[in-house]
């Protein structure tokens, strides 16, 4: 049990106000186990009405579970700003129209003292990792649990790169720790 703080913006605010539904810093009851979708259903808001929902300041999927004291806000389509992309609105997790989710497979080699990280369950027998695009080398090493501070050199297809480099299907990544023995 508990409360959540609810806001609706733009057209949605107008629509809800017209129906006398509280939508400006409104405190709503929260039942155990309720998710975002449940709250919206209770207010008569359908998924088509919204482009995205904020939970505690970040865009989140509709099936996100809620806790006492959470803050949610519903946004209809039509928000300007590159912030749509940057805040994660454009590829709303509930939209099925996302074409860029073709998986990519990359070969990743971890050298010297980093070799044990290649034993991660996600690595296949060829030393490859599968991803949903887009992904960066950083995504790969995070997936394998390699701490960034243990990495000194990063190579992509045999050429020096950085953790921010984007990956495409069949790329080969090489990761080295510092090495200094003599």
């Amino acid at each position, binding site marked *: 049990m508990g409360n959540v703080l609810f806001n609706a913006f733009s057209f949605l605010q107008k629509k809800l106000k017209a129906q006398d539904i509280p939508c400006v810093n409104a405190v709503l009851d929260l039942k155990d186990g309720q998710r975002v979708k449940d709250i919206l259903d209770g207010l008569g808001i359908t998924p088509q009405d919204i482009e995205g929902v904020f939970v505690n300041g970040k865009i989140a999927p509709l099936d996100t579970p809620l806790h006492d004291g959470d803050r949610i806000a519903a946004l209809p389509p039509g928000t300007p700003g590159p912030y749509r992309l940057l805040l994660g609105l454009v590829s709303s997790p509930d939209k099925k129209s996302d074409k860029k989710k073709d998986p990519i497979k990359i070969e990743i*080699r971890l*050298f*010297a*003292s*980093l070799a044990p990280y290649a034993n991660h369950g996600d690595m296949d027998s060829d030393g490859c990792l599968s991803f949903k695009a887009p992904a960066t080398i950083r995504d790969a090493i995070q997936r394998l649990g390699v701490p960034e*501070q*243990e990495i*000194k*050199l990063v*190579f992509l297809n*045999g*050429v*020096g790169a950085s953790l921010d480099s984007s990956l495409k299907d069949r790329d080969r990544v*090489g990761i*080295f*720790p*510092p*090495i*200094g*023995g*003599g």
Partner: protein
Amino acid sequence: MMPKDHSLESRARIEKDCQGKSCRVICDQDLLALADILNIPLHQMYLQSMEKGILPLRYLRNMPSITLKEQIILQTSQVAVVGAGGLGGRIIEGLSRLGVGTLHIFDPDLFDETNLNRQIFADQNTLGTPKVEVMQECCRLINPAVRITAHRIAVKDQNQDALFADVQVIVDALDTPGDRLTLAAIAGKCRLPLVHGTVAGFGGRVMVIHPLDGRMEMLYGGQEDACSAEHQLGTPVLSPALIASFQMMAVLNLLLGKNQATDNRMIYADMEKPSLDLFEL
């Protein structure tokens, strides 16, 4: 019977090399004797002999991977090897056998017990003795035509560049990031190529660093020793032996002006996997 003719030609004999081709060779004993009689330093005797087309027998098994012409170039070359530990010792021994005529070797340390796992010339008799002195003596016995200057000092200061004045190639066989960066700065000052090598576990890398190309900084700039791979994996004998060999190949490429000398990619070898890869830095 003592030959009355004190000439190289008179002492040479015909020998067949690995390919079955004939070539003229001369043995060490004759070269030493002639040098003595003619009062010429031994290394010059070697040079004269090779220039006349007579190969010192010791180099027979280098042919034809290393030709007579190339052997002459090596005899007149000068290389500095900084660090006489796991990598350095083997490189010094190897360059001596190859016949690189002048070597400057640098290392302040004495052999200790922990060197026994991998360092050539470390044995029960040499524990406690300065490494460069041991090497100078041993390599004199291996190839007296190679003149070795032993510097029992650490190279830690860019102002030591004068020590490398006549050298053509510097070999990095160090084990400390800071020292490697200093050596790179010295090589930059002297405008000399630097053959970098390093090991950890069952692998290691080699890369030729050109003057002021900034690549040593990419390898060791801002590095904290703590998570360096050799501390986590150790350095058994295989990797220094392998990497030292790659470093020697790089030295040969540079001295002999081979095409491969223009390839400055990083070689990484992992003997355990096994794999050998090239990376562009």
